[in-house]
């Protein structure tokens, strides 16, 4: 069996220790940009020999807590892992639960889920781009990224009632219907964003200073990306056409035509540019969803029947779902189910084991940031110390998501 590239790097480090020229730099956990994690960077002169990420500063024990809660109560819990991308991360859990329960989701609910997922994806990418900007001290990108993110948060708020913690997808459907005039406002936001993306290109991506910091830095080769199981934009920037939206049948992605953007270079600049490409694709998907969205119920027939007729009437008037009492103790049959969903940061993986009781026996989440953690250890080696922030920014690592 071939030796993994990581084992190889251990040997390199040992050799460097021998010469006693290595010194350690500690970064974090209180550190300039995003905080909540620590790196031990070992340097030989100005060249990085080894990086040891020390995570666990935001470990809030979600897998254990999920075992103590009823199924439905875990949705808000998992949402807190990636609060900037909350519909996507809960959708994986809801999908796995639906597989266990054997529920079909009505078409309108599937389209609405897709709509919010894409809004979340854009917001999450803008957050990542903003942080990538501040990592190399480009305040304008930070301010623009975070400022434009507010537009998408406002759209999400109109749809769900909350800026970040939407808890929108529930087993069998979604929690509220499309508000009036949503389409106009969404299209306006898209037009605005398209204009802004041009400005981004001008001031950030075509800026010679930025290009010099990002180009040919932290190159991830295609083979390595596959073997290390990297996910999300970091994978696609290395030329692998893989996206959980193509794989798992969730949302309305089977009925919408969209391209998955791929770039070949695999360096930091292409990882960032890929996020811009994805924002464009997401906006296109939102347009199509608003065009094609069918009429109909937003909760599965099976649960709709359980709601008393009077409540059902108010539900139709307000477009907001009242939970049937059954939701408090859903009992899926014994068994297991997996689900994969594409988040802004990459693919999230859920595995639920049920023993027939109202609480799960075991829930396993593997979040994209946890899988991309390997990159922070693998990419900076051999670069100069000041390339480290550029690489960290381009990976779009979100610590609460990795630690859960």
């Amino acid at each position, binding site marked *: 069996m071939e030796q993994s590239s990581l084992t190889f790097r251990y040997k390199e480090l040992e050799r460097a220790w021998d010469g006693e020229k290595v010194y350690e730099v500690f970064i974090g956990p209180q550190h300039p940009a995003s905080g909540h994690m620590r790196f031990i960077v070992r340097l030989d002169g100005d060249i990085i020999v080894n990086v040891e990420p020390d995570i666990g500063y935001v470990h809030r024990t979600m897998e254990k807590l999920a075992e103590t809660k009823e199924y439905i109560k875990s949705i808000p819990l998992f949402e807190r892992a990636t609060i900037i991308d909350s519909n996507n991360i809960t959708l994986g859990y809801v999908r796995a639960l639906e597989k266990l329960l054997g529920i079909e989701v009505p078409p309108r609910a599937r389209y609405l889920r897709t709509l919010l997922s894409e809004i979340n994806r854009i917001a999450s990418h803008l957050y990542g781009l903003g942080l990538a900007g501040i990592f190399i001290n480009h305040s304008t990108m930070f301010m623009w990224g975070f400022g434009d993110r507010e537009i998408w948060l406002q759209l999400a708020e109109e749809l769900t009632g909350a800026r970040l913690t939407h808890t929108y997808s529930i087993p069998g459907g979604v929690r509220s219907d499309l508000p009036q005039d949503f389409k106009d406002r969404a299209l306006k936001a898209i037009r605005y964003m398209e204009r802004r993306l041009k400005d981004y290109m001008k001031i950030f991506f075509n800026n010679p200073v930025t290009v010099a910091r990002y180009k040919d830095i932290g190159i991830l080769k295609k083979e390595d990306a596959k073997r290390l199981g990297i996910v999300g934009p970091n994978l696609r920037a290395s030329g692998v056409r893989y996206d959980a939206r193509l794989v798992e049948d969730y949302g309305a992605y089977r009925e919408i035509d969209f391209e998955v953007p791929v770039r070949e270079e695999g360096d930091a600049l292409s990882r960032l540019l890929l996020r811009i490409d994805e924002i464009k694709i997401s906006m296109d998907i939102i347009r199509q969803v608003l065009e094609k969205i069918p009429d109909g119920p937003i909760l599965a027939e099976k649960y709709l029947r359980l709601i008393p007729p009077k409540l059902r009437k108010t539900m139709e008037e307000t477009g907001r779902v009242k939970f049937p009492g059954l939701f408090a103790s859903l009992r899926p049959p014994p068994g297991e189910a997996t689900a*994969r969903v594409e988040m802004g940061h990459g693919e999230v993986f859920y595995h639920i084991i049920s023993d027939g009781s109202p609480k799960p026996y075991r829930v396993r989440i593997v979040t994209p940031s946890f899988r991309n953690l390997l990159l922070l250890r693998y990419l900076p080696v051999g670069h100069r110390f000041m390339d480290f922030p550029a690489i960290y920014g381009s990976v779009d690592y979100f610590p609460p998501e990795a630690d859960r």
Partner: protein
Amino acid sequence: MNLREKIEEKLKDIATSIEYPRPDLIVIAVNRDRIMEAAQRIVELGFDHLASVEGVDLPKENAIEVIYHAESYEEELRNTIVELKTRVARDDPKLQSLINVWPNALYLERETWDMLGVVFEGHPELKRLLLPPWWDDIPPLRKDYKVKVEGIIVGTK
């Protein structure tokens, strides 16, 4: 030859059972000492990285089940997840580390050690990952580690 047949042919002499609980999931159970071999054969089929490593505590059977989920980025294989599972004794949980087969098991196995106390032999850095370094209680994801249970339970029917 479709994937199921390929897997059955490749693994039938070492697997104790092969099941298909869902269309996108293939579950292969093996004995503890054949795990390395089984993993290598799964990689040869093209499932070249892991989606997750997890441990499930089964106090009634006095065992911990270690589950590997392998996936692939190839067009023909990507719809399927291969689940490879094995059981280790609860009081002496030892298993061969698979980081030379699947390099991204590095952090996933380390987390499983952290959370369930499964010792992966041959793993270069079994240190605390998520828990604080001074943790000295039993591993938290074992079922006998109790946390306070909240809640109002509403009866159905």
